[in-house]
């Protein structure tokens, strides 16, 4: 191993898969050897069986679908407001000075702590779940986009001015395309953040969703179902992350290192 020397594509995939194998093997070993009782930690095989059972007989597809819709819905709502706001804050410093202190403060408010309030305000329906995700994503995203847009190279803006651009054209033709790859990357990261909020959002007052299934399983001591739920969240998150990454690479080929 040499410092910072990249590895080949095949090797990278191989190494990445290898750790999953090691992880599952250790997990299997711990449960198979009886070091941990079954009702505390289900074995990998048992987890796979329950996952199959969940999908085949308990209508779990609907739960997964509901959870995905909540995460994506709350995330999109956050993005629709955070992206333009972040761009405005990044380009116009007075706007930044106005919003930035509050957004920085709000970013540290734990989204899950709002759940009791949100139940009072918007009830226990879908609106509550979407709002939790929204709160969890929005402030973070706004600050990230502000920072990205603030880092726009001044000399590129000046070049655009000397080529005949006015302010709005400079934003449209320089600020936006320049910041787009990093904004897309920020969206990808914040979507991942959204996933970490969904379970708490579904713990209370949900009649569907992966989180709802997990809470139900807790009452039944069904650790195999809980683990299956967790793994499925991980898988869905991983798939959405990879898809996002692929789209970003497609759209912003120019920004990749050559």
């Amino acid at each position: 191993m040499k410092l910072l020397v990249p590895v080949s594509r095949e090797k990278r995939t191989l190494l990445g898969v290898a750790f999953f194998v090691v992880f599952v093997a250790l997990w299997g070993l711990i449960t198979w050897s009886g070091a941990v009782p079954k009702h505390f930690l289900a074995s990998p095989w048992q987890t796979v069986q329950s996952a199959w059972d969940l999908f085949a007989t308990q209508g779990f597809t609907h739960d997964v679908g509901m959870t995905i819709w909540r995460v994506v819905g709350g995330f999109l709502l956050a993005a629709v407001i955070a992206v333009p706001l972040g761009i405005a804050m990044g380009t116009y410093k007075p706007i930044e000075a106005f919003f930035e202190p509050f957004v920085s403060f709000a970013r540290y408010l734990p989204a899950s702590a709002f759940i009791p309030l949100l139940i009072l305000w918007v009830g226990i329906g879908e609106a509550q779940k979407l709002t939790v995700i929204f709160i969890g994503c929005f402030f973070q995203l706004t600050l990230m986009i502000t920072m990205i847009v603030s880092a726009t190279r001044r000399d590129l803006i000046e070049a655009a001015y000397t080529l005949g651009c006015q302010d709005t054209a400079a934003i449209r033709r320089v600020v936006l395309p320049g910041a787009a790859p990093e904004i897309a990357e920020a969206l990808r990261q914040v979507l991942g953040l959204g996933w970490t909020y969904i379970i708490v959002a579904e713990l209370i007052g949900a009649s569907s969703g992966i989180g709802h299934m997990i809470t139900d399983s807790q009452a039944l001591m069904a650790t195999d179902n809980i683990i299956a739920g967790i793994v499925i969240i991980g898988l869905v998150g991983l798939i959405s992350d990879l898809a996002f990454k692929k789209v970003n690479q497609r759209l912003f080929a120019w920004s990749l290192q050559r």
Partner: protein
Amino acid sequence: MSRLSIRNVGKIFPSGRRGVPPTEALKPVSLEIGDNDFITVLGPSGCGKSTLLRLVAGLETPTSGDILLDGAPISGPGADRGVVFQSYTLFPWLTVRENICFGLREKNMSAAQQREISERFIAQVGLRGFENHYPKQLSGGMQQRVAIARALANDPKILLLDEPFGALDNQTRVLMQELLLGIWEQAQKTVMFITHDIDEAIFMASRVVVMSARPGRIKAELPVDFPHPRSYTVKTSPEFMALKARLTEEIRAEAMAADH
């Protein structure tokens, strides 16, 4: 009539901190640049020569004085003054051709016209075959050639260059000077070129303007009368040497003043 008139233009930068005095970057200077003139502005680093160019470009506003382009005062940056910066300012998300067409698109020129103009300037700066490359795929010298083409494609009244070859290695730099001079000899453009390199200043200029150490002011103006087209061999002629010796003295005194 002169194309560009700089009349008693001075620039003071506020310090931004209490107790720290403002910086006078440029003492009021006056300079006339005629149509199709090639002026090089020579001075030690930090003498305010870039400030002067940025004032003409409209990227800074003068603290005093007026700048007139074809008799009209300038009030901000605009497409009538093309600028080539020292840093590489090609838009990284656009190809060579798209970069050159950037200003043309802003003028809502038709695609066919854009193509025709970009074609011409791509050929002029010797970048045929690189039309669809991204800036990252080009060397520093090639990037600056695209930047020159991009500025020229807009057909500006004056071309402003702020040490455009400063970051290039010596060999590339010399070739770039010849390229730019060749373009000027063909196209006849009014050019203001900022540099701290004496050879560069003499080789391309029809007039060298020497600036003093900060706060900058114009210390001397020397006409350069070598005939055109000039080739690099002029650099070894006795007249060139004599001019260089004289400018070396002028600049040396200023560099020392700036250092003390």
